[in-house]
């Protein structure tokens, strides 16, 4: 096996730029290892925790808390991790918040372009889900991932509720209940217990279940926060409730004067 590279191996057959051999000596006398650090994503910085989504009879509902954690510091306590894409799609994002903002701007522009095109075609949830999968897969294949997990919700082309998951590798699937982040361990069993083999939930029952899951996540996820949002999508309407809070039962908390 050859461990040395001759510059001949590196010269492109058709040079579009001047070729500088001195950059390509990896071994030999007085060769310094490359100083520049790797500028690709290796770790998320400001992160959001779980996003919980479920289907109900006639629509989908997604919830996420409003915290951006900076490692273990609960740094940004009023950020929205849910997004209304257009009249037919909502999504929530776990993971790096900057990467979410980056994609959010791109998605917003996409919707503007679609509006301008005005050809009667509208992006629905399965289409956005597919597009996101491709974008995230291609970024991971360049070893520069967008360190995010998305939960995409809406109605499909037949008007049936659609809920999709995409992670930073481009792993994608659809299911009646989707939870990203730590909530995947905490909330998924609660959702499946109520939904498996049952007729579709009513909107009220779905909302109650979602709030119960957010409460459990707040109790048990170290990076969760009490304030959260719920986005509800039904045929023809999207509602994002922004001022919800988990109060919780702290009876056992004897450190607090209220409960002394």
């Amino acid at each position, binding site marked *: 096996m050859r461990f040395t590279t001759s510059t001949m191996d590196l010269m492109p057959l058709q040079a579009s730029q001047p070729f500088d051999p001195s950059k390509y000596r990896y071994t030999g006398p007085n060769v310094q290892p490359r*100083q520049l650090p*790797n*500028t690709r994503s290796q770790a998320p910085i400001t992160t959001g925790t779980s996003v919980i989504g479920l289907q109900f009879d006639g629509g989908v509902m997604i919830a996420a808390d409003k915290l951006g954690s900076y490692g273990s510091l609960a740094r940004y306590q009023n950020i929205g991790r849910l997004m209304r894409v257009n009249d037919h799609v909502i999504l929530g994002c776990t993971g790096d918040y900057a990467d979410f903002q980056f994609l959010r701007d791109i998605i917003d522009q996409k919707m503007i372009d679609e509006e301008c095109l005005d050809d009667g075609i509208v992006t629905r949830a399965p289409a956005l889900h597919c597009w996101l*999968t491709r974008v995230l897969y291609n970024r991971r294949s360049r070893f520069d991932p967008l360190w995010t997990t998305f939960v995409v919700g809406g109605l499909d082309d037949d008007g049936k509720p659609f809920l999709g998951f995409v992670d930073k590798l*481009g792993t994608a699937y659809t299911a009646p209940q989707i939870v990203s982040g730590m909530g995947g361990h905490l909330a998924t069993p609660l959702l499946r217990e109520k939904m498996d083999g049952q007729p579709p939930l009513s909107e009220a029952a779905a909302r109650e279940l979602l709030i119960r899951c957010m409460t459990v996540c707040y109790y048990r996820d170290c990076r969760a926060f009490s304030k959260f949002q719920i986005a509800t999508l039904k045929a023809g309407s999207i509602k994002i409730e922004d001022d919800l809070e988990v109060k919780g039962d702290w009876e056992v908390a004897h450190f607090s004067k209220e409960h002394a």
Partner: protein
Amino acid sequence: MSVQTMQPGARETAAGGPRQRYFYPYADNGGTVVAIAGDDFVVVASDTRLSSGYSIYTRDQKKTFQLSERTILGSTGCWCDVLTMTKVLRARMQMYRHEHNKAMSTGAVAQLLSTMLYHKRFFPYYVSNVLAGLDENGKGIVYHYDPVGHHDPGKCYTGGSGGALIQPLLDNQINYKNQENVTPEPLTVKKTVSIIKDVFTSACERDIYTGDAVAIQVITKDGITEELFPLRRD
């Protein structure tokens, strides 16, 4: 030597220079695929559990992809690679259809898949593939692949997390390996489907990534039929 911009979490090694955290582009999403060929049919089956670590993503994701009227691909392993590879494969098959004005034969798909996989020899699709279909004479054929495109035709193959548990049993029952004084009988669809159900129920006893249900598809000259057989959900 110092580094101007340090990534959080990056530390200097003893020899100096940054040490980076490593992003791993693959995941194991589990799943098992089995395909068995008969004289005029092929049965392809996969479980329907998609996993990640000790979590179940969904109990309702089959690992088989119908590529044409007579060819089905079973793909399991890293699910992001599975999705991409099948998307590209379907696009390539469409291109073939437009260029040659006929659908790809099973043998042609087999070769194409091999080439596609080897094309990514130095950053592979981390996928176990089992391709099954009817050849031009209507005879069943199954191909098994490694992640970089080596493929082999045969009568029955398995792939995925439970593959190693099932393959030996099929070698014995379908190919009559290590059996003495036995007269091979031609396989029927009914017998094959029955064997498939047995091997999957056995595999999901011991493989945590196999379970929930097995989607069994039978390809004959009359078309493709499908059955969903429930398995253990633990």
